[in-house]
């Protein structure tokens, strides 16, 4: 379990994390608020839709993308909590964003590329 150490001053901020109201120390990051409540899942991975969680907590890994006040793709580790904020674990995946593209099709062979361009008869990539 994550826990907060004794704090200098203790003004608390109330926010909603995945529909549950919680109180956390003012000034902490959204990721830290989530972790302190045991909510480690920030997003689903884009291909296999598995739970993912913050990795670097300093803005470089982009694993902690969450939805804050209705805006998706926010880095939970870089945003400070604010009174009344609504935070949701993000569920945008390739499937949900592009239902016509299944994960297996994201890996295409060079042969498929050639076939694609040759379909209309105008390109000859083999020449």
């Amino acid at each position, binding site marked *: *379990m994550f826990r907060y*150490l*004794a704090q200098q001053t203790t003004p608390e901020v109330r926010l909603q994390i995945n529909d549950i109201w919680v109180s956390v120390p003012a000034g902490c990051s959204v990721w830290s608020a989530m*972790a302190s409540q045991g909510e480690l899942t920030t997003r689903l991975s*884009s291909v296999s839709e598995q739970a993912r969680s913050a990795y*670097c907590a300093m803005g470089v890994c*982009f694993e902690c993308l969450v939805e804050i006040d209705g805006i998706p793709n926010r880095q939970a580790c*870089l945003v400070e909590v604010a009174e009344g904020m609504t935070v949701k674990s993000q569920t945008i995946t390739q499937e949900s964003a592009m239902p016509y593209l299944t994960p297996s099709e994201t890996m*295409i062979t060079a042969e498929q590329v050639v076939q694609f361009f040759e379909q209309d008869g105008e390109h000859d990539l083999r020449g």
Partner: protein
Amino acid sequence: MTCVDNNSFDIAVIGAGPAGMSAAITAAKKGARVIVLDDKVRAGGQIYRNVAASPLVDKAKLGPDYVKGEQLVKRFNACGCETRFGASVWHIGDNGEILFSYQGATQSLTAREIIVCCGAMERPFPVPGWHMPGVMTAGSAQVMLKNDGLVKEDAVFVGSGPLLYLIVAQYIRFGVKVKALVDTTPRAAYLEALPLLPAALSQFGVLKKGLLLLNEIRQAGVPVFSSATQVQVRGEKRAQGVSFVAKGKTHKLESEHVFLHQGVIPNLNITRAIGLQHHYSEQQLNWQPMLDQWGASSVSNIAVAGDCSAIIGADAAEEMGQVVALDRLNRLGLITAQQRDEEAQKPLAKVKSYNQLRRFIDRLYLPIEQHRVPQNAETMVCRCEEQTQGQLRAGYEQGACTPDELKGLTRCGMGPCQGRQCGHTVTELLAQWQEKSVSDVGYYRLRSPLRLLSLPELSQFQRISPAAKSEEVTK
């Protein structure tokens, strides 16, 4: 098209860590119109994160190397430069234009000189299971502690390097239970680093502090496993523990949380996207922008200082911030070349001494190959697009020989982190498969925008000029 005019700043500094703060102080003192942009909430960078506004009752437990940063932050806050915090730079043009996201909109400015001080990030640790929830970096443990006073009980720390031992010691001082320290520094590294020790002795105080840390950890009763290899994170959907080999024996430790660390590397995305020339450092096994002794890059109006130039550490970064700013001031005509040379003498001498220590540290804590270049086909390499070593190997066998070709074929490096977490691994894998040097393989071609942008951010532009005068620009 924007051009440099009276509405331009003299110097824009990107990043308010030790290098950026020190550059800004130096430049502001000579009367330059300076603006500093940083994506965090306040100045300090990762090393001095929240040092002037710590939530902790007893921040002294974080150690003197952290607390001393408060002086620098205070001098910076009083130096008279303009600042934008929570500002995330996403484009730097070749005409001195900088675009950044700020409070949900885009702001733009131009500057005659740009100093990039965007610091370091932790080297990826691509071992089986590193992508699962419950696995974070040791740096993240430190950021959570400094920024929020948030700690994790009973975690296992795995890897090598000064930062790893520091955070374990800090946890101990705050009474946080550490399950184990699994040290991956090979025994042979101590011998190989030994010839570099005499030169490093000029920084004896720093060396001594390092030794005392390890002593502190052992005396606190934390189990320490040395020369560990074959690290794997165990678990199906989230971390349940780690396994590794030490002294010829396989160990399995249960823990729901693992912190990994094998050194830091320059944060490349800005310098790469600008198109600066880079080279691969065999001493540090990382990509670095090519710079002269004044931090001047291959693009005349752009300089680089601090850990994003090469890993030099906070103390050297602070000195180099001054040196780089002095050269920019000379270019602006605010000081003469003679003034620059005189004032840079002391900081350059200090940097030289720090560098001798750095060579010793680099050799001792050089991350081992099996934890940098994954051999297991299941190991995740690109976390964003979920490309494993095996999938990348298949892409290579289909004919992708460069990082960009592999990116085009497999989408590795194409996700939101823009290759930050897979770039070094991909170049090393391709080098190994082709028996080429990493330099010959190269790196991803990066482009703006440097971060995810929302449509409102892209549609609202506001231009920033010195003296806080701003005008709406219709777009």
